[in-house]
C-alpha cells in the first residue's frame, strides 16, 4: 500500500535540477549537501553566495512569471538546457517555501521575461526602478484617481528622434534619475501630462510630454488596448527601447519589447 507521501514524491523524482526560490539560509544549506543534483537559487539577493544564482529583480506575485523568469535566467546562464525536467520549490502563499512545481524546460516557454530585464539596452536596475515607479503609480493613482502612464526605457537618442514634444520638456537641463527618492512624487505630478516619459540607458529621465511617432504597422498587441499601449508597443519595434505602460482603464502594468507584449502585472498585488 502506498502512502500519499510516496505518491507526492513522484513529483520530485528523476528531476535534472532543483530550483529554490528565495530560500532561507538553512534551506539552502540542506539542499546544497544533496549531491548529484544541481541546485539553482533564484532570489532578489544572493545572500548565501550560491554558485548557481539567478537574480530576481521583482518579487513576481504571479508564481508562473516567477518560475518562468528563473528558468529563462538559468537557461541563459547555462544552468539547465532544453529537455530538462526541473523541480521548483517556491513560496506561493507566503515567504517560506510551501510548494513544489515540476516543470519541463522547453524552448516554447521562452516568453522573454528574463530577456526583458537582463538583455535590454537599459541597465537591469533601471528597468526594475521603472517597474517600481509604474507599480507605485498604479497602486496609488493621482489623488485617488487612476492614472495612465507610458515609460520608454533605453535607446533614448533614437526614441527622441522618433518622437516630438507636445509642450516644453519639464526635465530639460535637469539631472533626475529613476530610483532617486524624489522621482515617485515628481512622476505622480507629471503623470497628468499627456505623452510619454523617455528614460535613457543609465536611468536619466530625458523628457516628458513626448508624442511618439513610430510606424505602427505589424505591431501585434492584444485587441482592446488603447492608443497608449499601441504607441508603446510600436516604439519598441522601431527602436531597441522597451516600453512600460500603466493602463488607465484596467490599472495593469504591461511591458513591451520588440513590439511584443512580454509581461503583465497587477500593481495591487505588490
Amino acid at each position: 500500500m502506498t502512502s500519499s507521501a510516496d505518491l507526492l514524491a513522484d513529483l520530485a523524482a528523476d528531476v535534472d535540477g532543483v530550483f529554490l526560490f528565495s530560500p532561507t539560509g538553512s534551506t539552502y544549506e540542506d539542499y546544497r549537501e544533496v549531491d548529484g543534483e544541481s541546485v539553482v537559487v533564484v532570489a532578489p539577493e544572493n545572500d548565501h553566495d550560491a554558485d548557481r544564482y539567478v537574480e530576481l529583480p521583482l518579487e513576481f506575485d504571479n508564481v508562473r512569471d516567477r518560475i518562468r523568469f528563473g528558468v529563462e535566467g538559468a537557461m541563459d546562464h547555462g544552468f539547465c538546457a532544453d529537455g530538462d525536467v526541473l523541480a521548483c520549490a517556491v513560496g506561493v502563499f507566503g515567504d517560506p517555501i510551501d510548494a513544489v512545481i515540476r516543470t519541463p524546460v522547453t524552448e516554447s516557454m521562452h516568453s522573454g521575461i528574463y530577456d526583458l530585464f537582463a538583455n535590454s539596452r537599459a541597465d537591469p536596475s533601471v528597468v526594475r526602478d521603472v517597474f517600481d515607479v509604474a507599480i507605485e503609480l498604479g497602486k496609488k493613482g493621482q489623488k485617488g484617481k487612476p492614472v495612465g502612464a507610458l515609460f520608454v526605457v533605453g535607446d533614448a537618442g533614437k526614441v527622441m528622434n522618433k518622437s516630438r514634444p507636445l509642450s516644453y520638456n519639464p526635465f530639460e537641463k535637469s539631472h533626475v534619475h529613476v530610483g532617486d527618492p524624489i522621482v515617485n512624487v515628481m512622476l505622480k505630478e507629471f503623470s497628468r501630462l499627456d505623452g510619454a516619459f523617455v528614460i535613457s540607458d543609465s536611468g536619466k529621465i530625458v523628457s516628458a510630454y513626448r508624442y511618439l511617432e513610430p510606424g505602427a504597422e505589424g505591431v501585434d498587441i492584444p485587441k482592446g488596448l488603447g492608443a497608449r499601449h499601441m504607441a508603446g508597443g510600436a516604439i519598441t519595434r522601431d527602436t531597441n527601447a522597451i516600453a512600460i505602460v500603466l493602463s488607465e482603464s484596467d490599472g495593469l502594468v504591461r511591458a513591451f519589447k520588440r513590439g511584443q507584449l512580454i509581461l503583465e502585472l497587477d500593481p495591487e498585488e505588490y
Partner: protein
Amino acid sequence: MIDASPTVTVESVLSAAVRAGPGTSPPLQSAGEAVRSALLSLPARLWLALGVVVLAAFLGYLVVRVNRRILVGAGVPETIEGTAFERTAREFGTSTVSLVANLSGYFIFILGLIVALTIARVEYIAAFWNRTAGFLPSLFLAVLVLIVGLVVGDKVELLIDERLRGVKLPQAGIVPAVAKWSVVFIAVLIALGQIGVDTAALVVLLGTYGFALVLFGGLAFRDLLASGAAGFYLLLEQPYSIGDRVRIGDTDGVVQEVNVFVTHVESDGAEYVVPNRQAFTEGVVRVRE
C-alpha cells in the same frame, strides 16, 4: 600646621573608638559623640574639597549621559556600525559611543579631583598634580583624536571596500587599506602633536607621501580629470543633449548618454564612447538635416 590636623583627628577618633570598644556602660553614645566631634574638628577646606569631588562626580556623570544622548542622536552608532574599532569595543562589552562618553566623564572627574586636592592643600602631591592638570586636557584631546581617527579610518576603509566590491580584482584590495592607514597616520600625528611629542620627522614623511600621491595621482588621472571638468560644463550647460545628431572629431551619430566623463554617441551599428575632453579640444558639430 593645617596639614597635620586631619591625621591628629583621625588618631583621636581611633583612640576614642578603642577606648569606647571594651568600655561597658554607654559605648554607642560615646562613639557617636567622638565621631561627631571628629567631624566637627575637620577644617572647612576639607569639606569644600569633598564637595568639589562630589560635584565633579555628578558633573562627570551628567556629561556622560548628555554626551551619549548627543552621540546617539547624531546617528553615530549607525554610522560607525561594522568598523573594526567598534567591533573590538563590542568584544570588550562596551561600544565606541560609551567609550567616548565615559572618557569625557573621567576627564571632568579627574579635573575635579585635582581641584579638590589643590583646595585641600596636599602640598607634595599638589606640585605633581598641578603639572598633570595642565597636561590633562591635551591628553584627553589626544585620546579623542586617536579614537576618532581610528573610527574614521575604519569607516573610510569600509566605504571604499564597498565601492570596490563590484571590481573583482584582487589588487584593488590594497586601496582601502592604504586609505585607512593614511587617516590613522594623520590622527596619530595630531594626537602626538597634542601631547607635545616632536613629530617633525613624521610630518616630513606625511609631506612626502602627500606629494607623491598628488604627483602620481595627477599624472594617472590627468585625462580623467580633464574629461571630468569638461563633463561638468556639458552637464550644466547642455550644449547638446540626448537625441541630438552631433559630430565630435570624426565620430558622427546620435547622442545616447552624457555623463561626467564620457559621451555615448551612436550611429548605425556602432556606439562610440567619446571622452568629454575630446568634445572640448575638437569641438562639437550639431548636425541639422
